[in-house]
C-alpha cells in the first residue's frame, strides 16, 4: 500500500492486488457459495448494517478486502466479533451476496488459525455454550451465565437480574438433558489433540 495515502482514502482508493493477495474470493465461492465478483459496490449493505457505527470495516469494505485478497486484515478485524447477524445486508444486496455467511466463515478460519479475537469474551461465551451442548445437549441459561462470569472474571455481570429472574421462576436449577447424547456428540468435530468422538 502506498505510504503517502491518507487514512481516509486508504480503504476506498488504494485497495489493490499486491504480493500478499490470495485466492480468497475463490475459496468463498467454494465454501459459502457466494460470488464476490458480483458486488456492485453500491454500499446498500453498509447502509442497512445494524452495527456499522461500531464496525472497524463496514460490510462494503469487507467485500472489497475479499476482492483484493487481504486475508490478514479480514481475520483480525473487530467486525468478526460484533456482527449481530441481523441479515439486513444480505437482503439489501442487489447481487444477493451473503455477508453474514462470509463473516461466519472468516470467524471460523480466524479461530482455526489461533488468531486472538478483539473481543475475547464473545468467543469465550460461544465456547462455553457449545461445551454445554456437547455435554448435555441443551443450554441451561443459569449455569451458562454462572460459568461465563467465572471464566471471564466478571463475577457480578448481570447479577442484578438474578433475584427477580429467580422469583419469577425464570431460572431452572435442574437442567434438562438429551437422552441420546451419543447422537449429539457425533455432530461435534474432535478438537485438536482430542481423540475421536465417543460413539
Amino acid at each position, binding site marked *: 500500500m502506498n505510504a503517502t495515502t491518507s487514512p481516509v482514502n486508504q480503504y476506498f482508493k488504494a485497495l489493490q492486488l499486491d504480493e500478499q493477495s490470495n485466492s480468497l474470493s475463490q475459496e468463498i465461492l467454494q465454501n459459502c457459495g457466494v460470488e464476490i465478483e458480483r458486488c456492485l459496490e453500491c454500499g446498500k449493505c453498509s447502509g442497512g448494517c445494524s*452495527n456499522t457505527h461500531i464496525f472497524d470495516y463496514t460490510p462494503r469494505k469487507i467485500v472489497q478486502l475479499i476482492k483484493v485478497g487481504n486475508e490478514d486484515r479480514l481475520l483480525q478485524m473487530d467486525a468478526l466479533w460484533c456482527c449481530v447477524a441481523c441479515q439486513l445486508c444480505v437482503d439489501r444486496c442487489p447481487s444477493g451476496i451473503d455477508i453474514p455467511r462470509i463473516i461466519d466463515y472468516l470467524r471460523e478460519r480466524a479461530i482455526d488459525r489461533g488468531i486472538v479475537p478483539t473481543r475475547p469474551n464473545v468467543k469465550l461465551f*460461544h465456547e462455553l455454550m*457449545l461445551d454445554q*451442548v456437547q455435554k448435555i445437549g441443551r443450554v441451561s441459561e443459569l449455569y451458562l451465565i454462572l460459568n*461465563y462470569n467465572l471464566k471471564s472474571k466478571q463475577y457480578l455481570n448481570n447479577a442484578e437480574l438474578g433475584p427477580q*429472574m429467580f422469583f419469577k421462576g425464570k431460572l431452572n436449577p435442574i437442567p434438562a438433558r438429551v*437422552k441420546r447424547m451419543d447422537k449429539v456428540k457425533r455432530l461435534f*468435530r474432535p478438537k485438536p489433540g482430542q481423540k475421536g468422538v465417543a460413539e
Partner: protein
Amino acid sequence: MNVAYFPGCSLHSMSKEYDMSTRLVCKHLNINLQEIEDWNCCGATAAHSVDHSLAVGLSARNLSIAEDMKMDKVMAVCAGCFSRLKTASHEIRNNPHMKAEVEQMLQSPAPVKPEVEHLLQLLVEETGLEAIAQQVVKPLRGLRVAAYYGCLITRPQKVVQFDDPEQPVSLDNLLKALGAETVTWGHKAECCGGGYAASDTDIVLDLGGQVLKSAKKAGADAIVVACPMCQGNLDMRQKAMGLDFRMPIIYFTQLMGLAFGYKPGQLGINKLFNSPTALLKSKGLVKE
C-alpha cells in the same frame, strides 16, 4: 392440524410464559403440538458463529426426529431456533455437499421433508386471521402497541420466504384481528442485539435501547414480541439502558390468550419484568 413443536432451551427456563401461552393458544385453535422427542439445542448463536457444519448438524438432528415422527411441519416460536432450523433445512435441500455431510453426521438420510415455520407464519398463513378473529371474546380495544419482528422471523428472505424482510405486516395484522391498534414505527425489524446479552452487553444496550426509544416515540403502550431473546433484551435491561419507560414487552401469544378469554395467570403474564397489569387494567382487559 398436527405440528412438530420445537420449544428450544429458553422456553424451558427464561421464557416459560412463551411456552405456556403458545401451548394454550394452539390448543384453542386446534393446532395439535407434538414436542420433538429428545430434541437438542439449535446452537444459536454460538454454533453458526464458530462451526457451520455443527450448526447445520444440530438442527438436522431435530428435523430428522420430526421426520421419524411422520410430521410434515416443524414449528418454532423462538426466532433464533426458527432461523437455525430453517437455514439447516435450506442447506440440506439446496447444497449437496452439506446434505452429504449431514448424512455422515447423522448416519441416516438427511431430513428433506419437514417444512419449518415460525408460529406467526403458521397462524397467519394456515389458521388465517379470520378464524383467529372469530375466537376473540375480549377484543384488545384501546391497546396501542408496537409490533416488533426483530431480525430473523422475516430474514434472510431467500431462506425464510415469509412477509417483507424490512416492512413486515403479519404481526400487525394479527394484533389488529385481536382488536388492538398498532403504531407505525421505524424499528419493527431492527436488531435488539440478540445473542450479545451476556458477552458484550453494550451492544444490546445500544441496539435494544434504540428499539425502545423508537416505540415510545411512536406512542406505543407496549411492545409485542415473537422471540424470547428480543423479549429478554428489551424487558430486563430498560434500567441499564438509562430508560425509565417501564414499557411492558409482551409475547403475541399472551395477547392472543387474553383476547381468547384466558386469565393472565394461565398465560404467565406475571413473569414479565415490566408488568403490563396496570396497562391491561386501564383498558378493562384484566380485573385485578
